[in-house]
């Protein structure tokens, strides 16, 4: 069995995945998830290490490692790097076959990716220079309201009259929330408003790519059921979420690793590119 790894060093959380391939097919062997924290390099090492341990595989036996995510150039042990855009598309194509659109919401950014029939990226858009309307926005809102991250989604689903959130600034949303609280608005309505505001913002970004079914959501925010539902409402379409949503980038990276191992295509551009921009 050939074993390959993908490590997705996100701004908030670092994800690692091992996959194995033999004659019968490809399967995910193990995953690990840790907070990225202050030391990006260490986080990547730790995630990779945990992942190997979980699968009972020695690091030396992992044939190839592709790093992705914003900290990809900090991975000391990775063989090459790819952007998370390619990786999310690839992962979604593998785990949710038929995916044509990926909506990825992570800690600090949101993207939409148009995916072709073979998992290739046709088109993509990302938010810019501003963390407005990202996972962090939600995390902050949760913190202000004193609600756990796991609970905000379910809470938001109970909203009957969602409030209007004027600011999109991840930091300033706090004062909006506080002022709604002081007006006696219900927590679920506030949270409903927050989710709706982000869903609208995200969709107005995502509409720049051709949104075609199947739409798959990836990234940590996909764990938030409230956000998924809000996006579905705004989009008017079903959105697919797998339990591995947050690992999608890492899965994609691992698949690229596997390809490298198999050398199924000539793809020297990666290595060359990796060298020219890494340090």
């Amino acid at each position: 069995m050939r074993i390959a790894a993908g490590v997705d060093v996100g701004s908030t959380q670092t994800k690692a995945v091992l996959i194995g391939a033999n004659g019968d097919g490809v399967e995910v062997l193990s995953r690990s998830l840790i907070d990225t924290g202050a030391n990006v390099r260490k986080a990547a090492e730790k995630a990779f290490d945990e992942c190997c341990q979980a699968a009972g595989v020695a690091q030396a036996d992992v044939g190839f490692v592709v790093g992705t995510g914003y900290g990809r150039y900090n991975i000391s042990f990775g063989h090459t790097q790819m952007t998370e855009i390619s990786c999310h598309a690839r992962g979604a194509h593998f785990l949710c076959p038929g995916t044509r659109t990926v909506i990825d919401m992570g800690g600090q950014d949101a993207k939409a990716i148009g995916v072709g029939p073979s998992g290739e990226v046709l088109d993509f858009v990302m938010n810019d220079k501003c963390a407005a309307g990202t996972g962090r926005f939600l995390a902050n809102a949760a913190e202000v309201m004193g609600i756990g991250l796991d609970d905000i989604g379910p809470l938001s689903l109970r909203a009957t009259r969602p409030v209007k959130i004027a600011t999109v600034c991840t930091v300033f949303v706090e004062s909006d929330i506080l002022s709604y609280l002081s007006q006696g608005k219900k927590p679920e309505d506030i949270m409903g408003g927050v989710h709706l505001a982000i869903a609208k913002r995200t969709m107005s970004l995502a509409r720049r790519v051709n949104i075609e079914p199947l739409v798959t959501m990836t990234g940590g925010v996909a764990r938030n059921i409230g956000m998924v539902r809000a996006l579905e409402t705004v989009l008017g379409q079903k959105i697919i979420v797998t339990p591995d949503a947050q690992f999608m980038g890492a899965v994609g990276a691992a698949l690229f690793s596997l390809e490298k191992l198999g050398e199924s295509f000539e793809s020297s551009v990666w290595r060359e590119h990796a060298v020219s921009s890494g340090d």
Partner: protein
Amino acid sequence: MKQFERTFDSLLEGMQDLSFAGVWRWKEQHPGAKSVAFFPVYAPVELVHAAGMLPVLLSGAGDRLDIQHADSRFGSFICSVIKTTMEMAMTGHLEPFDGLLFSSICDSARNLCFVIKRNYPRMYVDFLHLPHSTSDSSVEFLTEEYRRIVVELERMSGAPIQPAALRRSIALYNIQRSLVRQLYDLRAESPYLLRAWESYVLIRSGNFMPVEEHIEILKQALDYLPSRPGKKRDAIRVVIEGAFCEQPPLELIRLLENAGCDIVEDDLAIAQRWFTEDMPLTDDPVRALAESYVHRSVYSSVRHDFSKPRWEGLAEKVRDTRAEAVIFLIAKFCEPAYFDFVLFKKKVDEMGLPHLLLEFEEKLFTFDRLRTEVETFVESLVFD
């Protein structure tokens, strides 16, 4: 008085109605007749009227429409009237119109014209080049440009525009403009009889109904208002400058007044006061229209007359209305207004006049920050 309030409420409703029920009604009453919407600031409504069509102002959706599609066409750093107008197009809100007219006010508006043209190829969408200079050759050119529009309108309506009909339209709009001027005079004289936000609604709503109806409404208002109960209040007299195209939320105009400002002059709804004098009724009314634009129209950040700087126009306004301060009310990302602010500010500083710069967007849900700024401004003038 009850009558006035009732009319007022329906005007307010009409001007905020994104379904353009009034336009649909008019079209039902005039089977086969067309309606042409025009983007701010100025459009030769007389031509549209003379063609037997209903001219309607197209200026965004305020806070009444969420932007869900337009962001994908117009990105960051573009003013909101562009985006909400695009959103209206993309959500079927422009259905009542048979044509759209844009003009050379700014680069964003111009590009909007062509973007809409691409997306709605069956609609008549035109771009009017209003000259940026004031020589006789500009009159010559604009006359030709208007004739080009006339041909388009005739093609749409299937009938020629007769000079007599155009003269009649011009005469009607002359009346409308003179009534609007009277309303402004009344307000400048006795701001307590008519608040700025009220006069704004009275005037602006005229963009969504036949001019004949609007004239009646203005006449009634002018009859009633002098007898309206009201008493002088302690407020500073201000001129508002900069909101000539995208319009501030009504709430914001009220906020300014509540914070202690009497708005005695403004450039809101400026298109309805575009000409400084009545337009002459001549044998060649198209030419008269062009001549009036070039030589007899108000200063504005989107009209360039190099024989008289715009800042002198502002200074005159201030002097004529005995204003004590200027509030620059500028739509976020409105480049013409931003640029003019620099030269206006220079002039106003030279005049020793206090001024305040406020930026707004169509969509504002919380006004706290703006309120604080306006109140501070007023406090800085009234506290000793």
